[in-house]
């Protein structure tokens, strides 16, 4: 079963662990400017949300890539990146509606989430499970369950 990222902004405390873990696992150093996940925080409203590549089915980055450097392997759900095919045109950074493909001039390559080979460091180091990497059919289960609880309270007392 394919896994997807599930983000729970209501759990995120804005600690930036995901960003640092991403950088550390890709480069063995801490350069979060080059992380594939970023956290946006509104300090005054007390709101944080992590964002990363959604591995879209019909990925605009892939469609726009003139050299096939961004591609999907047969049977895979992951949008992969082949550095050796990339000509650095940056079209993908313009096409991605989430801003999740970024050109890094230090490594002269595109930074996008590769799920760390199926065990993403961001999810592993998130202290609140605000980022989950989870099988797609159960990804929304916590939300369904929470909503089901609201039904329960709405109908409480009306059942025999």
């Amino acid at each position, binding site marked *: 079963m394919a896994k997807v990222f599930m983000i729970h902004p209501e759990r995120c*405390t804005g600690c930036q*662990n995901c960003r640092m873990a991403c950088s*550390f696992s890709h480069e063995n150093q*801490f350069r979060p*400017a080059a992380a594939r996940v970023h956290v946006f925080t509104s*300090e*005054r409203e007390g709101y944080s949300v992590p964002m990363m590549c959604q591995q879209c089915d019909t990925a605009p980055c892939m469609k726009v890539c003139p050299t096939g450097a961004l591609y999907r392997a047969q049977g895979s759900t992951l949008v992969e990146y082949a550095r050796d095919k990339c000509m650095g045109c940056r079209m993908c950074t313009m096409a991605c509606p989430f801003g999740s493909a970024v050109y890094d001039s230090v490594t002269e390559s595109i930074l996008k989430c590769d799920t760390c080979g199926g065990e993403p460091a961001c999810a592993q180091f998130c*202290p609140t499970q605000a980022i989950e990497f989870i099988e797609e059919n159960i990804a929304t289960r916590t939300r369904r369950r929470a909503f089901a609880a609201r039904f329960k309270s709405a109908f409480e007392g009306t059942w025999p």
Partner: protein
Amino acid sequence: MNGWSGTILRVNLSTGVVSTQPTNLKDAVLYIGARGLGDKLYIDEVDARVDPLSPENKIVFAPGPFSGTLAPSGGRYHVVTKGPLTEAIAGSNASGLFGPELRYAGYDALIVEGKAPEPVYLWIRDDAVEIRKAAHLWGKWVPETTEMVQAETDLDARVACIGPAGEKRVLFASIMNDVHSAAGRSGVGAVMGSKNLKAIAVCGTRPIKVAHPKAFREAILAACETGNRNSTGGAGLKAYGVDLPLDTLNEIGSLAANNFRESYIPAAGEDERPSVLPGSPARRLRGCYSCVMRCGRISKIKNPGYASQLAEQAQEEGLAVAFDHGFDRGIDNTAALIQSHQICDEMGMDPISLGATVACAMEMFEAGIITVKDTDGLDLSFGNSSVMVELTRKIGLRDGFGNKLAVGSYRFANSYGHPEFSMTVKKQEIPPYDPRGIQGIGLEYATCNRGGCHTKGYTVAVEVLGFGENIDPHTTADKPFWVKLFQDLTAAIDASGGCIFGTSGRGGENYAALLSALTGVNYSTEEYVKAGERIWNLERLFNLQAGFTSKDDQLPERFTARPISRGPAKGQISHVPEMLTAYYKLRGWDEDGVPTQERLRELQLA
């Protein structure tokens, strides 16, 4: 260079000259970073007798090696200067995103010296450093300042700034970063204000290199695991935030109320918890950089008496504000406390000193030493929460009676000839852990280099909360040992860029392992703690040169002469004078509290 960035940034505001220098690796190894390296840089350059608010004083902002890495709860930075409140070494430690961003910009420390001829702010983007005009920001509160600076620089810039209190040199003004985080104590914000420095904005894209990535990763996972297993660091702080010790303190009768006249609130038991405990207002958890403990709270105030606003109810300041004023414990007052705390944060003031200063004034009001004629007509009776909110604002603006309180409780009470109403050590207000019922924390208050403070040797951890050890809070013979150990370990953790709350469940061995793997310098646990002792002694030497003597290592008379009046610790007094001799001896200091040459040599300080 691994672990350290290798560069120190220097900005002279008088001349406008920006320069860099390499980090001295020998000093970095001996003093680690943040509080330690910051102290070393500052003390080497500044005369201890300097007027804290003069252009000759300097101010150092120093993140530690952990800052900006995944070392758990390691995202802190330290502000080092001479504090205008205490006239002693000031070290104010803050979390948030600012410290790590300084590391990403490539700096182990930023030294600011001189005084700008007009209001300015600094904009640091890696090695591009600008001094920009800030006249349009002058007078703005912290959130607005932060957002305006971000709009002018980079929306993702991390901003440390002062509010009106720092501009007006309120002696306990704080430096606020990332809106909510405070380098709170000793008046470091007034030093920024005296330099006409409104804000510092930073964006960084550089790497922090790791000597042994695999070992560092393992040390991080080990530290996370031991931390999560601990009841305080794991579940406790998450559930209760930093209000966690309130009930326990009250149960042992050592929770200050009414300016330490009482230390027990009879109704605050299991059934009727003090209302600052979580429940109604807390809206969201907030976690600092790289932290897994989440002790911060974002609260929404819904009480119609107070505007609906968000406030972070974090750090012990909440606790101090809550209990130094002797409020009743209704929900209305929780709202008032949070609002007062929020005003402190937004105007840039230390809520511990502010709360205790108001409490001091309230007691003097009850004693008839000051009257409504002094207070602009305000009724300063204990428990008057709306006056508390009003006074917070007046102090931040130095408006009317607020101007008299803006110098802290010692100078205020002393100006009426009654210093005995001020609950301070070295002119800095102590938080509401009653030192008569918890002997170790009393010794920490008396000896702390930055004046009355609990965080630089938090023996409450073992005396009350049972982190690893359970020590009787009333004994005295063992306390010099514990106080010294906590002070030294805390200095090392501060120097690493770590948070002391992380010690709930983590020991020196975790920190030494993290630091060794990160820097490639091999620190044993003993060497790590010894680095802390070195830092403690360096600060002590500065204070001695600044004119402090052993006479300043004492508590207000209330604690040594007047027993606790009611509750479980009734009849107790503090035994600091007796413990002090043993403490000096253990530290290798003479009877006047001066470090011996022998001990200084051992610590590589002589």
